[in-house]
């Protein structure tokens, strides 16, 4: 860093893992750190990790992390002289970058002009073309005339993509394989783009089937230098969202890398770009041709894979460049090993990736060499529906791609993530898939491997049920008071075992499983699903047990949450959640009369119901008068009135039934 730094306090205008990531480097550089947070994020880890934190108020992004005025006020209040935008939110908002400049705050990122130019996609493409970057044929739709659209489409050629000019993240994007689908696609894309970005401008672009998504990590400095740190491949996508990201690409050699890097740097120079950026290409692995897609003027989510294989801290580099440092190009030989990143989302891949917000009951991972976790959550975090449901990024680095993939799969399988449905099993399945390991990852990978989105349940039900029961029993017995010394469920006479029922909670509409079990020393005799099992147990404790079913022995870690849900995570990547059926019905007012009976002798003064009426528990059926007081006769349960057994004016005895419920 230069001897005269231009800033000493950095506010991170972001949340979650990226805020924590930026704080980590900022602290290493001795910078004072400022966090901002919305109401739902008040207890988020990123808030705790900054030196000071400022509440923005509000819940939605618009009310908090996207509110420029609030963020600048937070900076002013805390004396922040630099803002790091992270990714997403305001990171590619030229207006924000401008506002920072006006407030005398360093924006750690490119100039508003660069952001603006690259933000309009068709404009970016034109600039790239001028800089000598190969592009796919395209056409901007400037009219509302379907005829014009058709002509433009024919010019571009099919298949093609309809893309939002202001877009990103797959929003406002449509794939069109033939001309007759065009009109609908354009209208839909425009609607979506208007809703998402406030700008309905779309353009058509030739679509390469079976291509790869390869992007170059570039940096520009204020001295006019442009450098690049190789490529990342992010071809495994679902609906244009990246699922697996890696560096280097299995299909990019040194020569192609150098060529693509040089082209990307040409664009950086053309723009006078300062800071970190990513130039994205579509790559045709049949002839190594590549075409400019877009340039992202920020640090990417997947930047860690580049850091791992190049041994660089890209956030540090961002700060250095923002401070006016001069870049030198990395040694092309400085690329070592292979890194792969996956993103764990609170979502259900088997159900069209619907988000599953909620409380993350437990979040735990072990520290393994070569595995890096970038997470913004912890046990007890609430994953709200206000923000992106990403829980964590996990990055594995190995000597080879296969090593990195398998290591990453194991690390994911070993994580304990309880309370939310996630895409973890899908990620593990992808990383262990032979085609993935062979490197044949084109953008249609998941479409060609639909089974990976609904991977087979890795849970051995008998083993998990046995673990859940054994640990529950152990916990009850150790709390068993005076007779805790006796074996569980001990009987003097022969005994088949205790009856119970358990229901799987992490599987939709799972049926209740009745079980009979008996724990005898280190053997659990278990009957379920019409079969008898002799499960041998080792190291039974309050939180774990080794369970052997059919001679296969595995460690099951078990967590009993609030005595209602039992979570089982095994050492082989099986994860399940179970709920024991309560032994007794809920406490209800059992002594309440089902029917409406008089409590005292008296006269009926009003009848509120008639035969056939549906009534709710506690509803007034009859009003009577006795001893100059009114008494109400109420329904003891929900039901339907079978008959009214009294009349207004009638004198009734105590306990006499006045209304009978069906």
């Amino acid at each position, binding site marked *: 860093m230069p001897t005269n730094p231009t800033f000493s306090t950095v506010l991170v205008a972001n949340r979650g893992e990226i805020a924590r990531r930026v704080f980590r480097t900022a602290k290493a550089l001795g910078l004072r750190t400022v966090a901002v947070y919305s109401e739902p994020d008040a207890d988020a880890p990123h808030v705790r990790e900054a030196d000071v934190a400022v509440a923005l108020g509000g819940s939605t992004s618009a009310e908090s992390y996207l509110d420029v005025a609030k963020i600048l006020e937070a900076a002013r209040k805390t004396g922040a002289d630099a803002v790091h935008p992270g990714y997403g939110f305001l990171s590619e908002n030229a207006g924000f970058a401008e506002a920072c400049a006006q407030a005398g705050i360093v924006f750690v990122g490119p100039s508003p002009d660069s952001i603006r130019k690259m933000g309009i996609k068709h404009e970016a493409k034109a600039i790239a073309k001028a800089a000598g970057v190969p592009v796919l044929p395209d056409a901007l739709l400037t009219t509302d005339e379907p005829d014009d659209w058709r002509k433009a489409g024919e010019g571009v050629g099919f298949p093609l993509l309809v893309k939002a000019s202001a877009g990103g993240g797959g929003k406002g994007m449509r794939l069109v394989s033939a001309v007759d689908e065009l009109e609908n696609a354009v209208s839909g894309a425009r609607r979506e783009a208007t809703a998402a970005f406030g700008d309905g401008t779309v353009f058509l672009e030739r679509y390469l089937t079976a291509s790869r998504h390869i992007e170059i990590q570039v940096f520009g400095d204020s001295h006019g230098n442009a450098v690049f740190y190789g490529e990342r491949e992010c071809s495994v996508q679902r609906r244009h969202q990246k699922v697996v990201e890696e560096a280097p690409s299995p299909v990019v050699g040194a020569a192609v890398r150098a060529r693509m890097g040089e082209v990307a740097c040409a664009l950086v120079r053309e723009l006078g770009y300062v800071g970190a950026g990513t130039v994205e290409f579509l790559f045709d692995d049949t002839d190594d041709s590549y075409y400019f897609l877009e340039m992202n003027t920020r640090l990417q989510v997947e930047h860690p894979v580049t850091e791992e294989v190049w041994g660089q801290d890209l956030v540090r580099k961002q700060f250095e460049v923002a401070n006016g440092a001069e870049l030198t190009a990395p040694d092309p030989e400085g690329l070592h090993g292979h890194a792969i990143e996956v993103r764990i989302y609170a979502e259900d891949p088997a159900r069209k990736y619907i988000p599953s917000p909620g409380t993350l009951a437990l979040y735990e991972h072990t520290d393994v060499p070569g595995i890096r976790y970038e997470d913004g959550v912890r046990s007890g975090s609430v994953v709200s529906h206000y923000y992106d449901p990403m829980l964590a990024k996990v990055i594995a680095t190995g000597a080879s791609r296969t090593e990195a993939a398998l290591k990453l799969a194991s690390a994911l399988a070993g994580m304990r993530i309880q309370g939310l449905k996630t895409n973890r099993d899908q990620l593990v399945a992808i990383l262990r898939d032979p085609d993935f390991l062979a490197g044949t990852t084109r953008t249609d990978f998941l479409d060609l491997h639909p089974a990976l989105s609904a991977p087979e349940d890795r849970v051995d039900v008998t083993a998990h049920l046995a673990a859940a029961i054994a640990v529950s*029993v152990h916990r*009850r*017995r150790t709390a*068993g*008071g*005076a*007779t805790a*010394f*006796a*074996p*569980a*469920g*001990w*009987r*003097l*006479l*022969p005994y088949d075992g*205790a*009856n119970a029922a358990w229901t799987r909670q992490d599987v939709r509409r799972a049926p209740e499983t009745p079980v009979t079990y008996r*724990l005898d020393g280190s053997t659990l005799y278990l009957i379920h699903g019409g079969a008898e099992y002799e499960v041998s147990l080792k190291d039974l404790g309050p939180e774990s047990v080794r369970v052997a079913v059919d001679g296969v022995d595995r460690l099951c870690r078990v967590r009993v949450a609030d005595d209602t849900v039992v979570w089982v995570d095994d050492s082989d990547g099986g994860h399940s959640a179970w709920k024991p059926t309560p*032994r*007794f*019905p809920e*406490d*209800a007012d*059992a*002594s309440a*009369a089902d029917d409406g*009976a008089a409590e005292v002798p008296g006269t009926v003064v009003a009848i509120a119901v008639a035969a056939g009426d549906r009534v709710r528990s506690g509803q007034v059926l009859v009003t009577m008068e006795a001893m100059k007081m009114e008494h109400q006769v109420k329904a003891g349960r929900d039901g339907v009135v079978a008959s009214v057994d009294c009349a207004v004016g009638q004198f009734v005895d105590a*306990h006499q039934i006045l209304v009978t419920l069906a």
Partner: protein
Amino acid sequence: MPVLRSQLDPSSEAARADREAVLAALQRIRELQQKVLAGGGEKYAERHRSRGKLLARERLDLLLDEDSPFLELAALAGTHDPTETVGGVSGIGTVSGVECMIGANDPTVKGGAVGPSGVAKQLRMLEIAERNRLPLISLTESAGADLPRQADIFVPGGASFKGISRLSAAGIPTLSIVFGSSTAGGAYVPGMSEFTVMVKNQAAVYLGGPPLVKMAINEDTDDETLGGADMHARVSGLADYLARDERDAIRIGRQIVADLRWRKAGPGPTENPDEPVHAAEDLLALAPMDLRRPVEVREILARVLDGSRFSEFKPLYGTTLVCGWGSIHGYPVGILANNGILFSEEANKGAHFIQLANAREVPLLFVQNITGFMVGSRYERGGIIKDGSKLINAVSNSQVPHVTLMVGASYGAGNYGMSGRAYDPRFVFTWPNHRIAVMGGRELAGVMSIVQRQKAEKAGQPYDEDADAQTREFIEAMVDGQSDAVYASGRLWDDGVIDPRQSRTVLGLALSAIDSGPVAGTRAFAPFRM
């Protein structure tokens, strides 16, 4: 404390033979237990279930804390008599953290009717509850007395209602959950209990059922009007709680027990409850079915006591009665264990030791394997009766809790001196090889033969040797049949036959139950004849 060593070679030929023999006996006992467990049999169980009702043992399992132990008592009561009604289950279990005496009628056996053995069992359970300060829970569904046997039931049976009331008087709570029909005598179980829960549309509690009412006063009525749960909860006030169904009733019962805020009054376990050093499995080689084979009783203690630790008292004196201190699941106990026939020295040592345990207020464990006191002129002259009386005096008046474990023979006055059933031990458990009688069958037959022969000689009549042999055989078989462990348990001479390997758990549960009440000793004994 010294740790007992073992000389036992469980792989020896003799040990293996003994083991096989006792396993065969255990198998026969298990078959008998299975019959008891089956209650009225599959047909009646199915009929009962089809009414949406739970079986007696299902009710019990639900009542007990999940995965907690249940010490069933007198399970074989009445099984010695083929004319008996054997149904129902009784024992000690933990409900809402409280060790309780629990009894459940089995309605699949003659509608839950109680026979003479059932009455005797009920009375024994009331005695155990009172002496050990255990709350009583009755899971009631009973047709009352087994009428054909009413002559054997009516008079003694009255004590069961007295017993419930006296528990209350002693400050011990009583609770009855009524699941079904509970007629006449049965009706007084909820009537006498402090708390009563009745299951809606199931419980029917009345002095006389609809037919009797029709007979007596010509009133037409039905179960629900006459003694339904709803009526008793709203009108008569016999039911304190109305339950929607059986599970709800058990839930309410558990809540009632939780609300007792019951605390045990004993000193609690104080010692390290570690497992014995020697394997419980070997106890099978220490329970020879042939009682003529001597067993070193310290080998048994080494497999029952915490850490096999035993601090022996007077080890060089009166060596056939082993006395000393140890603990079981943390509960300290003084132990008197037979290692052969009793002589004067043993009787004096035992009397001394019992007084010490009373002075220290430590419960006593009697391990009985005794053929009796020594006979013969030398011993009579040595005052064997005088010394034996000292031991019986000490046992009779001792106030610390006694538990008696019968691991072999229990003959003659040895049974008394070692706190047999008549000496009010809190619990008596037996092993399958246990035999109990005034003396062994062969000895008894022999004695009778000698007496007959002398009578004939005196009368100058010839003695019929063939008839003598026949008589001896008959008497021997009869005595042996009436002294075997299963028969004895059927007669309620003990609280249950156990697998020797269960000894430590059974004794631990018994000591824990005893600990529900205070442990106090006494200095008040009859004069010891010096």
